[in-house]
């Protein structure tokens, strides 16, 4: 009984890890899709969401297999960037995800860490695939990134392998509150500094960051935040002479 329970526990864990890797395998595509939604409203440049969806889907299911078959029969045609992404990045990660189902993971911390590093390296290999390689005996722009990218793929695989072969710690616990509010505070500051100026954005970001812990007491936080904002507003633009807007644009005009 205990044995079967233990078995089923690793099985569910393996499944979630494998599904995570599947998502990782198409993460760049998903990211471009989300990014492309902005173009509807005129933010940013790039392809529209429909084009992104169609081109990645055809690349994943049609283009890449076609290139593989073509390569096998000796036909070397120049593949498009989407097809290359599928070939260099997505397919290997999918393969890893499928393999993960059949593995006993002894240290999830190492295994997942190694695979994610490998994914990063594969992504870098794709990102530098359009660069020129060796020209005779002199390095091209793409030689060094490919060299180190390949090395990192090997190292990531090695780390993942230790996670399979040796016992080690399981995945560490992640909390969401601290990272979320600290990130929100940073992003808000970045977006607000130009239009709203130091005073408003620094004070607001201070309060957002303070949400990162449940121990915040609001009266003292507001007082300290106000003092810090005043201090920064004097220190950076006046004492140090760094140019930055002080107050919201609409108030100044």
């Amino acid at each position, binding site marked *: 009984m205990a044995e079967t329970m233990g078995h089923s526990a690793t099985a569910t864990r393996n499944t979630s890890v494998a599904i995570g890797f599947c998502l990782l395998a198409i993460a760049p595509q998903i990211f471009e899709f989300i990014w492309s939604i902005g173009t509807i409203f005129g933010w940013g440049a790039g392809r529209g969401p429909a084009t992104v969806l169609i081109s990645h889907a055809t690349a994943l299911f049609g283009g890449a297999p076609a290139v593989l078959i073509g390569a096998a029969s000796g036909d070397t045609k120049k593949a498009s960037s989407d097809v290359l992404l599928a070939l260099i990045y997505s397919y290997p990660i999918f393969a890893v995800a499928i393999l993960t189902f059949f593995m006993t993971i002894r240290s999830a911390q190492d295994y997942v860490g190694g695979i994610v590093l490998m994914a990063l390296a594969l992504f870098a290999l794709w990102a530098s695939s359009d660069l020129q390689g060796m020209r005779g005996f002199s390095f091209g722009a*793409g030689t060094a990134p490919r060299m180190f990218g390949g090395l990192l793929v090997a190292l990531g695989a090695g780390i993942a392998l230790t996670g399979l072969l040796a016992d080690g710690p399981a995945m560490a616990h992640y909390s969401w509150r601290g990272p979320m509010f600290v*990130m929100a*505070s940073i992003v808000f500051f970045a977006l607000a500094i130009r239009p709203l100026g130091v005073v408003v954005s620094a004070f607001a970001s201070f309060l957002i*960051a303070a949400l990162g812990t449940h121990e915040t007491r609001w009266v003292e936080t507001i007082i300290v935040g106000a003092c810090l904002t005043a201090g920064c507003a004097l220190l950076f633009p006046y004492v140090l002479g760094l140019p930055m807007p002080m107050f919201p644009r609409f108030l100044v005009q």
Partner: protein
Amino acid sequence: MDIFANLAHGFAVALSPINLLMCLIGALVGTLVGVLPGIGTIATVAMLLPITFGLPPVGALIMLAGIYYGAQYGGSTTSILVNIPGEATSVVTAIDGHQMAKQGRAGPALAIAAIGSFFAGCVATVLIAVLGAPLTKLALAFGPAEYFSLMVLGLIFAVVLAKGSVLKAIAMIVFGLLLSMVGSDIETGASRMAFNIPELADGLGFATVAMGVFGFAEIIRNLDAGAEMNRDLVQQKITGLMPTKKDLIDSTPAILRGTVLGSILGILPGGGAVIASFAAYTLEKKLAKNPSRFGRGAIEGVAAPESANNAAAQTSFIPLLTLGIPPNAVMALMVGAMTIHGIVPGPQVMQKQPDLVWGMIASMWIGNLMLIIINLPLVGIWVRLLRVPYRLMFPSIVIFCAIGIYSVNNAPVDVILAGVFGLVGYWLIKHDFEPAPLLLGMVLGPLMEENLRRALLISRGDWSVFLTRPLSAVLLAIAAFLLTLTLLPMLRAKRDEVFTESEN
């Protein structure tokens, strides 16, 4: 003697009112950072980089240097009194220092830490002055092949000295090297891995990544544990700073050994203050007639690591000033500060900018003197600072970092990138990857690639050039030797033992 003339010139520069002020500010900020846990030297130096825009270059570098060695003093104060190391470099000081404080001997512990640091600082200052000129001459004999091999050696050192898995440390270095390739290629100008984002065309800013991985990630990690950290102050009044005669006799050899060890580890690329303090503590324990005293308030356990970390903090300027190679992340930020002011680090700096080099060296000695005064009589003020709760401190650090990064390039994108690297750093910590080798790889990446390409161009594509040039071959041989040593299982066990015992 050349050295005396140079040092005299340096003191003339360092004693000018503006530079004295900069030195004092640096020492004060350094002590503050050292005392406060949760904010490290790397993040602070990165944060203050933009501030140095408006300063003259000599003053700016004097201030930044002051922060680095000032933090080594400050870290010892909290280690001894509160058992919270404010800096990674004083983790081992806490073991015996805090025991001494519990036995009512906080005063002598603080005094010995300060005296040891001061002595080490003085020796290191002289060492920089003496070694500077000959090493610069040696550097002129270096071709691209030698530079490349030296950097390989430095990175291998970083791997050997990093704690935890060797494989992970190497992976972090390679990751850093890859990150350094983002942006325009130096030779062809081709845009690499920049995804047509204009802000990435110049590459990832080193300060941005450092602030993310060391500043934001640290904050997020600390919030995991809850903002209210356990801070039991040693409440009794610190009476009698003066160590007894026996204390002095016991600690003198420890200080000497710590200084020597720290100076050596500081010069080696990849080393630095953290490693030096660990190594010095282990050495003392090995040499002691009665090792069981360690951990129960042995004064050598305070004297040796404190001297070692201060010596290392200062001698790590030697490779930077003579070879132009930053041996650790803080020195890499100093490179950033120098470049902001249009100074290219390397062997030519000594000749072209004597004011800068000798002024900085002289200021280190002055700064050490200031630090003794800042730390010993004023120790009560610093301890009171620890009562500032983390729930108020962390939003302040976030805002200060954000404004600091924004002001480097006036680019909001940089702030967001730093945030992203904060999350990356948090992920790295969760998967037990050390971020320090990553930064070192990122710093040395462009230099390495440039020298590798140049060496191969000169040799017309012949890779054996790295082995046929004698200096380069020796450097690579040392690197290979070190790597095999670390991978040998027997030594691995030893190495883990060193790190686990210093973490207690």
